[in-house]
């Protein structure tokens, strides 16, 4: 009774309690072969075993209370599917705007005094340039024709003695970098035939700021929905802890560690996150199947080769990963708050 040392720490104390503490009493004498030293490997195996059986039991436990489990899963699936769908929407918009960025144009308004043949020659000269992808000449007559068609003033020339419109050459640059676009615009502006070169980029900028806004909105809504997933999982686990209070007290009384007691609840959170995310993934994919035909029709009015972007492998994996992480984290929060308070009385 003389040696006063605390319970041994580390691997030593992981061993089952009946391992000898220099005890030679009769209770231990008859155990014989069973009294082997539990080595590290056996300890690790038992740890794995407990993880496996806890994982399985936590899953089975969900089916013991099918209705509440189902409702929780439905809420989780919706809360995960919404950001998932918004994300796919963004992906498609980004995809589309990425393609459309490909053709900002520069309109070259030619000198009004330039004769028609000169305008023709100028547009041919532009065709030879290597920094342009496409060149289109809109002659004075075509411009007027177009104006008449759009405005409905078919007899506009009756009020004007001559065509007031300049010839316009619309060019499409090869390099769409913002800096090189404005450099090109300036260079073209210097040309003697050109009265004014206008970079037609307003709509590109509008689109990209819209995309930026949409990204931000999705981020904020996604964060809010993630928070609601945390709260739903946390609350469900809290109720589960409450209903298993007796079991926790008994387990602690017979020597369960905090992590042993926590483990089933962490696994419950894991399963909620995983199953909720898989259902959310199904929601997203089914929704996409349902809208892909009408969306395809709509977009094909503007663009020929459009294919609706789906989640794909990586994003599907991310959705499920996020679900699992939120489930685990929600469980951690609930467990950290409530389990410590439950002690045997």
């Amino acid at each position, binding site marked *: *009774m*003389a*040696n*006063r*040392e*605390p*319970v*041994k*720490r580390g691997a030593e*104390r*992981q061993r*089952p*309690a*009946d391992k000898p*503490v220099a*005890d030679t*009493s*009769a*209770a*231990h*004498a*008859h*155990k014989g072969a*069973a009294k082997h030293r*539990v080595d590290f490997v*056996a*300890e690790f*195996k*038992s*740890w794995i*075993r*407990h993880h496996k059986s806890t994982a399985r039991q936590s899953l089975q436990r969900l089916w013991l209370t099918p209705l509440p489990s189902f409702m929780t899963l439905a809420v989780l699936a919706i809360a995960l599917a919404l950001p998932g769908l918004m994300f796919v929407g963004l992906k498609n918009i980004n995809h589309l705007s990425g393609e459309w960025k490909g053709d900002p144009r520069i309109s070259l308004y030619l000198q009004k005094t330039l004769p028609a043949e000169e305008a023709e020659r100028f547009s041919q000269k532009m065709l030879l340039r290597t920094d342009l992808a496409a060149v289109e000449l809109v002659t004075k007559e075509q411009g007027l024709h177009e104006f008449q068609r759009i405005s409905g003033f078919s007899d506009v020339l009756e009020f004007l003695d001559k065509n007031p419109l300049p010839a316009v050459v619309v060019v499409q640059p090869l390099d769409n970098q913002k800096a090189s676009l404005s450099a090109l615009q300036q260079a073209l502006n210097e040309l003697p035939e050109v009265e004014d070169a206008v970079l037609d980029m307003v709509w590109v900028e509008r689109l990209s700021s819209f995309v930026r806004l949409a990204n931000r909105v999705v981020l904020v809504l996604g964060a809010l929905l993630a928070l609601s997933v945390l709260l739903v999982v946390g609350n469900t686990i809290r109720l589960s802890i409450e209903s298993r209070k*007796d*079991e926790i*007290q*008994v*387990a*602690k*009384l*017979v*020597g*369960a*560690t*905090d992590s*042993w007691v926590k483990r089933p609840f962490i696994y419950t959170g894991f399963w909620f996150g995983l199953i909720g995310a898989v259902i959310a993934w199904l929601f997203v994919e089914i929704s996409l199947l349902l809208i892909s035909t009408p969306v395809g029709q709509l977009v094909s009015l503007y663009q020929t080769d459009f294919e609706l972007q789906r989640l794909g492998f990586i994003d599907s994996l991310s959705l499920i990963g996020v679900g699992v992480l939120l489930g685990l984290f929600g469980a951690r929060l609930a467990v950290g708050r409530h389990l410590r308070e439950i*002690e*045997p*009385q």
Partner: protein
Amino acid sequence: MIKFDNVSKRYPEGHDALRDVSFSLNRGEMAFLTGHSGAGKSTLLKLIMLMERASRGQVSIAGQDLAQFSRDDIPYHRRRIGVVFQNHQLLFDRSVFENVALPLHISGYDEEDIGKRVRAALDKVGLLHKEKLNPITLSTGEQQRIGIARAIVHKPQVLLADEPTGNLDPALSEEIMRLFMEFNLHGTTVLIATHDLALVSRMPYRTLTLDQGRLING
């Protein structure tokens, strides 16, 4: 094995449950702890289990001062002790077998080992044939025996019991006491809190008596 040195326990509300208690119980010894209701018997057992901590003095088990155990050490300390409570605290969502197996699962025994040990423990309390039943279907006496099987299944060095015969008739009480005597014969240190003085007087064991938290006879 169990040693109290001038131990006092004052609950936060200011009530002194134990005052200046000193005694020691040798390894392999068996003793009763008696006293009126509220004398401090349960409190004394809770100090040993580290369910409560002493306000003053020193409690040591197997030579180790319990004050030195951190929260993380408590589970490993409890694994060397078996406890039986009056409200036996069986879990009614699982079989008798699973109830008794719980301490072994917690300590990390493998399945095969668990099967052998649980059956041995159930055999000792005479309920081997009921292992598959739900404990809720058993009588009070049988439930108490299941609680005892759970307390001794991991062969603890120390066995504590708090009013283990509280709800039982004299014949059943004797039977339970005989079980404790048997474990004690195998070398387990046993401490039983009870206010059943008639039963205690029939048993040839040392008796520690508490009165208002003071040990008046030990």
